[in-house]
Each structure stands twice: as C-alpha cells, then as structure tokens.
C-alpha cells in the first residue's frame, strides 16, 4: 500500500482511495468502498488503545473543527449574500 492523503487509505481490496471518516471509525459504523463495495468496520475489542487515542484527538480538535466549519459557512454565506444582492438589484 502507498501513502495517500491523510484521512484516506488505499482500499485493502481494490487499492482505490478510501475515505475513513473518524466519526464512523469511532462509532463502529461500516465504511464502504465506492470502488468495490468492501465494508470495513472498526473492531472496538482489539483496537482499544488506538480508538482511545483517536477519541482524544477527536475531542481535543472539536472546537477547531467547529470554528473552521463556521468560518467556511460564513464565507459561503457571504458569497451567497453578495450573489443574491447582485441578482436582486432592481433594473432601471
């Protein structure tokens, strides 16, 4: 396997990039590969330490993620507002 972007691993079956959403890993949800349909499920029993470390990271970065998300949202809203102003400007 070769390194891909962070948060993505090469699918163990078809080697296509497979996104591993941290929430799904932490909650034990099955993560499906769009390429081959393979399903990966985190094993809580045997991955205690790793999932704890992941959970700590997730908690500690929650605020940063929220801030980043709201920043992106407000930037997007600003764009939309500008666009709508442009659209709704009355014509003479």
């Amino acid at each position, binding site marked *: 396997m*070769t*390194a891909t972007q*962070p948060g993505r691993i090469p699918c*163990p*079956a078809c080697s296509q990039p497979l996104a591993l959403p941290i929430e799904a*890993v932490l909650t034990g949800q099955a993560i499906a590969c769009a390429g081959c349909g393979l399903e990966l*499920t985190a*094993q809580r029993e*045997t991955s205690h330490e790793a999932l704890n470390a*992941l959970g700590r990271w997730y908690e500690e970065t929650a605020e940063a993620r929220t801030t980043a998300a709201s920043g992106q949202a407000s930037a997007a809203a600003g764009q939309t507002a500008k666009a709508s102003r442009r659209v709704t400007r009355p014509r003479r």
Partner: protein
Amino acid sequence: MSDDSSEKAVATDIGGGGQPPTDGGDGGGTTAPTPRELPEPQSSVLSLAQLIGAPIHALVDAEAQSAMATARFIRSVGFTGNGDGMGDLGELQMARFKRRHRGADGSDEEVEVQIPLLSMLPIPALQIKDAELDYTVKIVQTEALPQRQAEVDQLMAAKRQGPTGEPPATLRATFAREQGSNGRRSVDMLVKMKLRIEQADMPGGLAQLLALASESSSQDVLAKRDEEGDG
C-alpha cells in the same frame, strides 16, 4: 542624529512594554544631548541589528515551535509510547478493522485489516507563508568599530585593494513614533507585523514516515467459514 531625548522614553517600550513618556510632548522642550551624553549600551537603545533581528528571531522561534507541536502530535497520536518527553516512541498505533472477504473456494473469510492511526488523520503542520515587518526606527547614535575596520582592512589588503573610506559602524536605534497626518504625534509605533500562516506542504521526512506507516498496514485472515449465504 541624537537631537531628541524623548526617544529614549519611547524606546523603554521595547524592553518591557513600559509606559509612554509622561511629558506628553514631542521632546521639543528638552536640550539636545551630545553623543557623549548617551549612556553606553542601554536597554532602551539597541543596535539596529538587534532591533531588526528580534522580530525575525521571533518568527524563526515560532516556526520551530510549530514543528515541535507537529512532532508531539505524531508521538502522542501515532505511536504507542509515552507521548510526553522524548522517550521511546513505542510501536505504531494501529487501528484494527474487520472486513468480509469471499475466498476463491466460495467460503467467507473474515479478514482483519490493521491501519496505522497516522495515515487516518490530518497531521497539523503550520508554517508562516509570508511575513511583512514594518519598522519605524530612529537612529540615535552611530558608533565606529575599529576592530571591524581592522578586519576589513586586512581583507581588502589581501585583495590588493585600497582601504575603504568609511569605517563600518554600528547604528544604535530606537523604535520611533509614527507621526499623525496632522504632523502631531499619534500612537507609539514599535513594529507592525503581518503574518500569513498556512498548512505546510508535506515535509519529505513526514511523507516518508507516512509511506512507511501505510506500508505497515496489514491483513490477516481471522476465521474461515463455509458458505452460509450471509455474505
């Protein structure tokens, strides 16, 4: 050069965020000190090199701190060893996943996939993209450096060129006030700093680490079951 003694009071701000001068004036009422009257190296008057160098040093320090934070993150999240300090890294922290796999003989295999945590997370690595430093300084003293002059003379002699006319000098300066638009004093200006910070490109070493981490992903067959039609 040294025509304004009030600058000394301004310069105390550099040393420790001191009070602005209480005379409130522009130094017009004070007598101009001669260079001799200026105390020798004092905390408020620094060499120009120190003055310009300090913020640059701070930027380098900030980059180093950012790199250390990245290293700490990798240690604490990516490895099983104690995340604090610089002790043993331990092993790569691996998360274990289960996947179903149908074998060639039609039987269902349960396969364990081990994936290093490091390859699952975005690794924070910030760097200063650009920095804009805007200094407002006032040169209050120049000081000839005979020793440096001797070095320069020696160098120039070696190159069979004549000695330079002017001896090299150390400039002593303070951060000066910025004048308001009406010519009156506005706020004290020390140094204006504008930074742009971005996620750094993956450093070579980190890319190599991630590649190694990815290579350590592994799969093991856990159990083999006969076809039950539940795959």
